[in-house]
């Protein structure tokens, strides 16, 4: 079966990529060696979000298992722009797939600096803007406000012709409104969902468990919410969608494609199996075949046909 997809000008071998921050290809290669490259599970690699300056991340504990999911409050540990470009980028460039770098900042100026420096590198095929962050100037969370999202895009869009993907937060009443603003600002695609705001208490105590007090929920528990947000965004924008949230199997991936995503990302499931993405891809191929479809495009056409009648 022909699983190739094109999204935002990127040509991918199949529709399964990783969620930012859920697969460190450098650490994984250190553990698994070059066998990992031969069996690389994703058709594009999305880096963990980087910020202008290095960050140590949040105090432990950082994770908590919940019914069919987990909460994380990792706190974006990263080497900062300079460290990333110097140390990580050369290693990520050795991966057998295109590279997308996820970036986050708290002001337009810093966002612009990141986009400019990262987009300038040939190793980088695309950028993802993680907008679940406050704008230090307005005090508002960028991804919760359509005007903030639009104005951020207006700042960074002119900087590069490379694909810009906007990663939406699910913690809003109307994700489609944010997606429309991203599209209006010139985003090439949106990806969703990021994690749902969540917290947990230490078992048998009345104290919060996480070192940072709260974090974000991911995994199968949130899949029905993610699927609904993808549906609502797909019904509202024409730019392509990268769908994620609790995808564990090819059947799950098919649901996201059927509801309007062009590409799917595997996140938390990678923690259960470093090659979860490869299994999802294989199962998706089988699921498409048994739904009588010859390619992901076929599915898109079937949906278009059924919604236009």
């Amino acid at each position: 079966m022909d699983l190739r997809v094109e999204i935002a000008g990127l040509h991918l071998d199949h529709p399964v990529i990783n969620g930012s921050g859920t697969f460190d290809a450098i650490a994984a290669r250190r553990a698994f060696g070059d066998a990992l490259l031969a069996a690389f599970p994703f058709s594009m690699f999305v880096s963990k979000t980087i910020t202008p300056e290095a960050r140590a991340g949040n105090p432990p504990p950082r994770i908590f298992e919940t019914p069919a999911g987990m909460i994380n409050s990792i706190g974006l540990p990263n080497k900062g722009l300079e460290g990333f470009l110097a140390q990580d980028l050369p290693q990520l460039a050795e991966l057998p797939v295109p590279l997308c770098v996820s970036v986050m900042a708290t002001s337009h100026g810093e966002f612009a600096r990141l986009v400019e420096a990262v987009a300038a590198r040939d190793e980088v095929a695309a950028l993802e803007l993680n907008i679940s962050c406050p704008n230090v100037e307005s005090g508002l969370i960028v991804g919760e406000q359509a005007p903030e999202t639009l104005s951020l895009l207006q700042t960074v869009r002119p900087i590069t012709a490379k694909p810009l993907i906007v990663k939406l937060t699910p913690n809003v009443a109307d994700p489609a409104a944010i997606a429309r603003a991203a599209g209006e600002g010139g985003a090439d695609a949106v990806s969703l969902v990021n994690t749902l705001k969540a917290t947990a208490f230490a078992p048998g105590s009345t104290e919060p468990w996480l070192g940072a007090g709260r974090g974000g929920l991911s995994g199968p528990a949130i899949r029905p919410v993610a699927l609904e947000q993808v549906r609502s965004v797909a019904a509202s924008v024409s730019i392509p969608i990268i769908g994620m949230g609790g995808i564990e199997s090819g059947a799950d991936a098919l649901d996201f494609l059927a509801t309007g995503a062009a590409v799917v990302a595997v996140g938390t499931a990678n923690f259960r199996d470093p090659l979860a993405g490869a299994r999802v891809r294989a199962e998706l191929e089988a699921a498409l075949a048994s739904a009588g479809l010859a390619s992901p495009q076929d599915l898109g056409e079937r949906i278009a046909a059924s919604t236009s009648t």
Partner: protein
Amino acid sequence: MPPLTGSKPASDARTLVPPGRRLCEVTENRAAGGYRIFSALDESGPEPRAGQFYMLAAADGWGQRTGRPYLPRAFSVAEATPADGGLRLHFLVEAVGPGTERLAGLRAGEGLWVTGPLGRPFSVPGDLASGVTGAILVGGGIGLAPLAILRRQLGERGVPLRTLVGFRDREHSGGVDELFSCCEVRLASEDGHAGHRGYVTDLLAVLLEGDDAPTAVVYACGPPAMLEVVRALCSERGVTAELAMETPMACGFGACFGCAVPLAAGGYMRLCSDGPVVNAADIETALVAGSGHRACGR
């Protein structure tokens, strides 16, 4: 992240591991004192080094407590023995929650998902500090697991070693005989039912008073409170120590950054890939929030 100080082994020669989890057959599960030892046949993984761990999940019944366990669980390998068709891996388990309960209940013939061996193993004494010839192994309760295989591997290299083991009480002290067969072990127990009445760290303190202390390195595994005493004792006396630590882990292969342990130099390490064996001089404390869930041995 600042570079790790202390004595990282000169060549960080890791064993390469098949990417992806693999299904192994459980071959045995038996009681060992207050714990259980279960074994599985690994047909394709490399031989683990002492201190390394595996991420484990039962093929069936994972998720049975309303969706938990969901993630795999980290387990130190207690022993690895050649077997027909592969390696037989042995794990020591204490049931403290849904994941360990399910693993403690595995029956022979069931499937076990395995990823590993993962992480940084214990170093060879000579790689840790020059002039060092011997080793002191300090284990508390279920913290024995990695010391069993370490004892064998060091023994094979002819490293002279002394083993100190602590238990809460009689009920939890079984299993030692099996794991440390033909090996001299000094015991401590909090209830005094065997050996010294008190903590295993009391025995270590005495040993570290001895003249030969500077020629030994300490390898320790056990609950955070015990490790912290070991760290402080060794730090005071300038003795090199490696600690096998625990924190909650989601992935075990560096993917999630969930297993942060504070570094003495500031910032954090990922315990799954920079550990789980850490040089005591590198960390700020062994009392890492979230890691102290099992009150065994000390």
